[in-house]
């Protein structure tokens, strides 16, 4: 591993020459597609069946992307998403939604942020047309320009690359955390301290995942690194990550992992972090319920599928345990903000009821400790409809009346209260840049 803290960067470069403009020429560069697949896609495009061609292409793209992501370890992907019950034996298809896959690919540097944006757009395009009712789909269709730009996006960012070449530097970083013991004087520790928050969050995920899954010498390395790195970055960590560490301790304790408990206890004592150890693992049930909402929200037919998981969360009771608060508020806000096509009318009422029951303290906690790194919600604010719903949320729960610690969050809330989308986007971009350090 070299000494550059920006451990993984997206591969950029012109995979598809500018001269390649027809489906046949563009698909030539899809290294991960078989000749038969290319032929079928080109045939669909050339005969004007863009919806069929694009849906087929999108299926291939997402499968390839998930396969590439799985090379960094399914367990780790689960940890990065805050899913507590994922292990290496799980199928990546079951763990990741399409939106999660694009976000993780962006975070891990597998695709650039521009390519990620194009992939998101393609996903929304495919989802939109596949969800149309019969009457609408007779009238509307994907036009050629949209289809070709999506074809380019899929091939350039995913299908044009040879398999399993991704995230090499990231895998090295992960291996270092699990395969060697870093000392306080190691330059990588200093660099981590001064790196953007995303790296802190990721390091916590890697270490906690390692503490959960590793055994023997690798576990010893992970625990030693936890005792060096967690105290070094603790003061910068937000509550979500502090709770993640506390939850890891509680889980290891309940699972009888004596060695892991010893290592985590030592680190938590160094930072006086036992306030972040949950009294019980009741929060797991809430986190799982929140994950089910996100899964429905990101999947096909989300407007129909969101209501059942929201109702399930509601049945768990109004008192959401603090460790589960970030996951639950994010999931409920996803429902309330909706996407560029609208909101799930069947789910929004119950979601609003749960959010309305939250006290000012809990909103204060979310806005100050969670929102600055809640990429899922921040990314929603790009689009007009979710932003407009966000404005209503900000006003309804009087976010501007809260004591805001982060300047960019404060600007975002102010712009939202004034319904100024441009200024809000500018503040949102700042928050994203702060998080990723771009």
């Amino acid at each position, binding site marked *: 591993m070299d000494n550059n803290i920006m451990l993984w960067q997206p591969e950029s470069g012109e995979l598809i020459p500018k001269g390649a403009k027809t489906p046949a020429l563009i698909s030539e560069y899809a290294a991960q597609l078989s000749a038969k697949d290319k032929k079928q896609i080109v045939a669909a495009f050339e005969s004007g069946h863009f919806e069929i061609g694009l849906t087929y292409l999108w299926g291939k793209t997402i499968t390839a992307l998930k396969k590439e992501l799985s090379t960094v370890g399914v367990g780790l992907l689960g940890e990065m998403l805050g899913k507590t019950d994922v292990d290496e034996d799980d199928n990546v298809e079951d763990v990741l939604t399409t939106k999660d896959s694009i976000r993780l690919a962006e975070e891990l540097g597998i695709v650039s942020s521009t390519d990620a944006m194009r992939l998101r757009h393609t996903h929304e395009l495919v989802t939109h047309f596949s969800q149309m009712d019969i009457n609408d789909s007779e009238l509307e269709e994907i036009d050629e320009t949209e289809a070709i730009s999506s074809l380019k996006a899929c091939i350039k960012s995913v299908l044009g690359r040879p398999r399993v070449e991704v995230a090499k530097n990231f895998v090295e970083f992960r291996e270092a955390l699990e395969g060697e013991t870093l000392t306080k004087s190691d330059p990588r520790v200093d660099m981590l301290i001064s790196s953007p928050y995303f790296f802190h969050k990721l390091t916590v995920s890697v270490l906690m995942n390692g503490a959960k899954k590793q055994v023997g010498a690798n576990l010893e390395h992970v625990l030693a690194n936890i005792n060096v790195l967690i105290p070094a970055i603790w003061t910068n960590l937000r509550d979500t990550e502090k709770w993640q560490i506390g939850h890891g301790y509680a889980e290891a304790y309940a*699972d009888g*992992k*004596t060695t892991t408990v010893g290592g985590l*206890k030592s680190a938590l004592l160094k930072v006086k972090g036992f*306030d972040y150890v949950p009294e019980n693992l009741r929060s797991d049930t809430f986190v799982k319920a929140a994950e089910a909402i996100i899964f429905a929200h990101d999947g096909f037919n989300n407007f129909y599928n969101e209501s059942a998981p929201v109702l399930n969360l509601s049945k768990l009771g109004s008192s959401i345990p603090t460790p589960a608060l970030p996951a639950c508020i994010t999931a409920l806000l996803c429902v309330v903000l909706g996407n560029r096509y609208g909101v799930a009318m069947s789910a929004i009422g119950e979601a609003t009821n749960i959010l309305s029951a939250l006290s000012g303290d809990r909103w204060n906690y979310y806005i100050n400790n969670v929102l600055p790194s809640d990429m899922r919600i921040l990314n929603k604010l790009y689009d007009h409809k979710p932003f407009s719903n966000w404005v209503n949320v900000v006003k309804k729960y009087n976010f501007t009346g809260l004591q805001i610690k982060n300047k960019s969050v404060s600007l975002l809330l102010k712009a939202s209260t004034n319904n100024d989308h441009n200024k809000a986007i500018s503040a949102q971009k700042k928050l994203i840049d702060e998080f990723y350090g771009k």
Partner: protein
Amino acid sequence: MPINITFRTQLLGGVSEFCQQSNLTLISNTLHLVELIVLLARYKEEGVSLCPKVYLTNGMDTLSSMLPEGERIKIGITSQDAKGIKLAIKKCAPLANGGWLIYIQDGVNNIEYGLFKGSGNPISVLVDDVLMGENDGIIVVKVFQVAEDCVEIKANNGLQHYVFLNHRKEESPPPLQFLDKLVSEITSITPEQEREPLISFLTRLLFETLRQSHGCIIAVTNMNKPPKFLSHDGVILEHPIDFVNLITELKKGQISSSCLESKGSLLQGMLNSDGIILFDNKGRLLGYNCFVKVSHKNDINGGARKRAFDALKNKVGSGLCAVFMQSQDGWSEFRSVENGQ
């Protein structure tokens, strides 16, 4: 005028260094610890013998937060002296069973006392594994009657003594000292991911049961089948109780903790039966109520159990990898291939 001879002077001298090095204000007066040791050595309430585990500390809040899913019940506050300690034990000892432990928190001018417990999950980490290690300035001293007339005092800075209030020799091994070795043999070739929870489960279960047992012999085989010298006269289960599988299923949520606990109850019942209990080193309980032929040629002092243990000792290395015996008074013996003890 006759001169009284007591253990008291000897005991005061014996634990004074321990008290000093533990740095806990409450026992800076050595007499406080001595009173507690003597009190617990043969503690009885309403004629019933009780052996509560007592934890003296200066940081009960942090200790409680180290035990997720645990509980803590404050009983009262009293004076920081021997009288206060006696009151705390009197109020709490009858309640300290079923996993409940007594805490006495050292205050500025008083002590707070009450009960606490770790998680009810049968595979959770043992309370002592969490509390009795280095705790960054938090002092913990555990005082506990291990067997009648024998009290263990242990501090989390590593200091540990067994205090005998009888005529045992200084070099006597403490009771139940071989429990860890026995559990280690039973779990020696289990999968690494399940080994620690299995060790916690078996240690907790065997410790509680052996404390109350009239004595027992536990043999561990490293063979694929139960050795004939035990299986020919004993109950060999058609389907061994596989604790590793049970723990794996519990962790995956496929069974409830009560399912594992109920298998533990069977083991407790077996420990209270006559004969030898047979485990293998893969964490499986193979049988119970087994008997071994005893040679009458050997000149052995002792009863049937001692004779059976002696016969089994000779089988270590040929059919067995370890054998453990606990006598009626709580003292134990052990022999394994590894240490030949």
